[in-house]
C-alpha cells in the first residue's frame, strides 16, 4: 500500500475509507443546519473574525434565516432530492473563504466532504479552522466530523487521483491552471464536476446618474465600489477591473468621471489598502506594457493605490491585468455595445443607475456566450448559491423520480 502525503487539518479526521462508507446525512436536516448555525454564531462572536470584513460576511451569509432561504430554493416537497454522496472540493488560494462556502453548501445538502485547503498561510483561514476545531470537539457534531476530511497537500497528482476516484461530485475552484491539473485525475463514471474557471468582471455606470447624484449618494456608491474592488486586492473573479461609462455624451462622461473619482480618492486616502511596492511596480508594468501597443491615456492619481487607464476601445486585457487597484475605463453609448464583450470569460457586471429590467431585457433578447451575474455595485463579492452559471445545490444532490 502506498503512503499518501496529505495532512488532515484536524487530528480526529476520519480515514478516507471510513469517510466514503458513511451514509449521507439528511439534506437540511437538524444536524447540519445546527452545525452551520453554530459556526455562524461563533464567527459573529469571535473578536478575531470580526476584524476581517469577508469573515463577517461569511458568517452573515450562513445565518439561520439565509440557510432557510437556501433550503426553500433547494428542496421541493413534491420531488425527492437526496445527497450525491461524497464531494471533493479543491479550494482557491486567492479568496480565503471559498472553501467554507463550497464545503457548507455541500454539507447542507447532506454530503460527506473532502476539502483541499490552500497551503498558502492565511490569517483568515487560520481563524476559520480554529472555530471549526472547537465545534468538532463537541459530541453533538461527531456525525459531521466523521464526514469531513479537511486536508492540505502540495502539488501531488497521486492524491488528486485518490480523492477524485472516491468522490461523486468534484468542485474545482482556483482557476484554469488548477482545473487543468485536477482534470488529469479521472472521476468515476457516475460522478460529475463543477469547475470555476478564471473569470473577469467589470462595472457599468450611467454617467447621468452620477452627475445628478447628491454627495451622500455619491459617497455611498464610491464606498461600495471601494469594497468591491479592493477586497482580495481586486483579484477575485468578481472584482471589477474596468468601468464602462454609459452615455452618448462625452461631456457628461467627463463630468461623471471627475465627480466619481474625486469622491473615490477621498475614500481611498483614508484607507490602508494593503498594497505594497511590488503591487505598484506590477501595475506600472501592466499599464506601460499596454501603452506600448495600444492607444490609451494614463490618468494621474494622487498615489499608486489607484491606477487608471482610459481605453479607446473597451477591452478587459486579462493577460495584463494584475489587480491591486488598476482600473480600465471606457465609454459605451448604449447597453447593446456591451454585447461583444460578454465572452465566457466574463463573470459579473456590477452596475449603478441602470434599472434591473434593462439588464433582464438585454440578456433575454440577446444570446450571449458569457456573463453569469449582474448585481448592483457593492454586491460584487457577495457569494450566492447560484455561481458561475451553476445552481450549486442542484448539482450537489441528485433527484429520484417515482411514478
Amino acid at each position, binding site marked *: 500500500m502506498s503512503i499518501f502525503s496529505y495532512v488532515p487539518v484536524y487530528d480526529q479526521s476520519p480515514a478516507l475509507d471510513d469517510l466514503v462508507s458513511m451514509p449521507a446525512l439528511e439534506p437540511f436536516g437538524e444536524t447540519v443546519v445546527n452545525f452551520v448555525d453554530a459556526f455562524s454564531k461563533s464567527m459573529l462572536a469571535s473578536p478575531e473574525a470580526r476584524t476581517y470584513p469577508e469573515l463577517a460576511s461569511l458568517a452573515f451569509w450562513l445565518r439561520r434565516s439565509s440557510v432557510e432561504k437556501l433550503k426553500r430554493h433547494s428542496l421541493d416537497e413534491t420531488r425527492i432530492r437526496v445527497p450525491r454522496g461524497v464531494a471533493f472540493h*479543491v*479550494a*482557491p*488560494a*486567492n479568496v480565503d473563504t471559498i472553501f467554507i462556502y463550497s464545503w457548507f453548501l455541500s454539507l447542507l445538502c447532506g454530503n460527506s466532504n473532502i476539502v483541499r485547503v*490552500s*497551503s*498558502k498561510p492565511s490569517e483568515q483561514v487560520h481563524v476559520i479552522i480554529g472555530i471549526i476545531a472547537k465545534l468538532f470537539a463537541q459530541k453533538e457534531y461527531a456525525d459531521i466530523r466523521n464526514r469531513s476530511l479537511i486536508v492540505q*497537500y*502540495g*502539488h501531488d497528482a497521486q492524491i488528486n487521483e485518490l480523492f477524485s476516484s472516491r468522490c461523486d461530485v468534484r468542485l474545482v*475552484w*482556483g*482557476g*484554469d*491552471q*488548477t482545473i487543468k*491539473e485536477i482534470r488529469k485525475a479521472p472521476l468515476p463514471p457516475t460522478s460529475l464536476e463543477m469547475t470555476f*474557471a*478564471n*473569470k473577469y468582471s467589470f462595472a457599468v455606470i450611467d454617467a447621468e446618474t452620477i452627475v445628478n447624484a447628491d454627495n451622500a449618494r455619491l459617497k455611498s456608491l464610491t464606498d461600495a465600489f471601494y469594497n468591491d474592488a479592493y477586497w*482580495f*486586492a481586486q*483579484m*477575485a*473573479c468578481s472584482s471589477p477591473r474596468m468601468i464602462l461609462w454609459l452615455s452618448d455624451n462625452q461631456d457628461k462622461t467627463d463630468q461623471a468621471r471627475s465627480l466619481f473619482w474625486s469622491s473615490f480618492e477621498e475614500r481611498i486616502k483614508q484607507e490602508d489598502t494593503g498594497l505594497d*511596492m*511590488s*503591487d*505598484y*511596480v*506590477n501595475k*506600472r*508594468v501592466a499599464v*506601460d*506594457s*499596454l*501603452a*506600448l*501597443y*495600444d*492607444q*490609451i*491615456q*494614463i490618468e494621474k492619481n*494622487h*498615489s*499608486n*493605490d489607484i491606477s487608471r*487607464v482610459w481605453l479607446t476601445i473597451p477591452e478587459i486585457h486579462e493577460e495584463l491585468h*494584475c*489587480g491591486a487597484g488598476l482600473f480600465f475605463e471606457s465609454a459605451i453609448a448604449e447597453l447593446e455595445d456591451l454585447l461583444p464583450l460578454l465572452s465566457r470569460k466574463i463573470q459579473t457586471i456590477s452596475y449603478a443607475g441602470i434599472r434591473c429590467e434593462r439588464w433582464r431585457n438585454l440578456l433575454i433578447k440577446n444570446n450571449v456566450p458569457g456573463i453569469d451575474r449582474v448585481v448592483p455595485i457593492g454586491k460584487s463579492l457577495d457569494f450566492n448559491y447560484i455561481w458561475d452559471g451553476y445552481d450549486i445545490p442542484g448539482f450537489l444532490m441528485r433527484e429520484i423520480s417515482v411514478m
Partner: protein
Amino acid sequence: MLDLAYLDWPVYQIPKREKRELLTGRLKALTQHHYDHCKEYASLLNAYGVEVNAINSLEDIPFFPVRLFKTYELRSVSETEVFKVLTSSGTTSQTVSRIYLDRNTAIAQTKALVRIMQSFLGKQRLPMLIVDHPGVIRNRLSFSARGAGILGLSNFGRSHIYALKDENMELDMEVIEAFLDKNRNEKIFVFGFTFMVWKYLVQTLEQMGKRIAIPEAILIHSGGWKKLHDEAVDNRTFKSRLQSVTGIQSVHDFYGMVEQVGSVYMECEHGFLHAPSYSDILIRDPYDWSVCGVNQPGLVQVLSTIPTSYPGHSLLTEDIGTLHGEDDCACGRAGKYFTIQGRLKRAEIRGCSDTHAAVQH
C-alpha cells in the same frame, strides 16, 4: 545622436549644477531620439501625455520599468543595424531581457566602461585573476550575463587565468600559485561575481585553511548581494573575511545591469556606489513615484547617456536604494553616491489561477 562627445566628460569631477545641465540636455535629446525612432516608446509617451519639449529637469525625463525588456522587443534602430543582442541571466526569473545594440551603442558602452575602470585600475593592464571557470565564456555566441561580464572586464587585464577548474567550481591552487609566482612584483586585478568570490574563493580558502597573499591586488566584483544576504553576509563581513584569506585591501563592488551596460556605478573606498558623469540615479517613492530625498529609501531609477539603439536611457529598476549625498563623499569623487538595500520582493502570487502555483512551494 552619434555624437559621443559626452564620453570626454571627466568621470567623477563634474559639479552637480553643471552635471544636471549636461545630463538633462543629453537625456532630453535621447528622449526625443527614441520618440522618433521607436514607435512603442512614442506610444508610451503619448499615453502619459509627455511633451518632450517641456522637459526641463532630470526628474522630468520619462521612465518605464526595466521589466518591459523581458517581454517586448524595444529598439530604435532597424533590424539590420543590430550588431549584438545582450541578454540577462535567467537564473532568478524565467524570462530574460533582450537588449539590442548597434555599433555606436556598443562602442559607447565600451568607452564609458574604460573611462570608469581606468580611474580605479590605472591605464596599464594588470595581470588578471578571474574568479570563475573558463567554460563560462567558451560559447561566445550566447552572451550570458556572467560570460559577457567577464569578457567585458577581461579587456582591463592581461595574462588572464581562471581561479576555478570547471563547472564543479573547484579552486585551482596550482594555476593560482604559478600565476602569483610569475607576477610576484605586480599589482594584480581580481575580478569575479560577488557570490562566486564569496563561495568559491573566500569560503573555499577558509575550508582548506589556506591563504594566498596578494595584499596589493584590487578586487572588482558585481552581481548582487541576494545570496550573501540570505546567508546574513554583509559587505563588511565580505571584505574582512576576504582580507583574512587574501590580504586584499582594495575591494570595489559595482552596480550595473544588462539594460544599461557601460555606465556602471563603482563602490568607492568608503563603501558608497558612485554615479559617473555618464549616468545618474533618482530614488523614487513607490507610493507615488515622487523623487525621494537623501537617506529616504525607494526604487532606483537609472539614467544613462549611452543607449541610442534601444530606449533604455531612463529606467525604473526593481532595486531598492538610498541616496546618501551628492558631490560630498569623503572619497572626493563628485556625483551622487548611494547604497543598494536589495531587490523588490517578488510580488505575492494572487489571483484565480494561483492555487496550483501556490501549492507547489
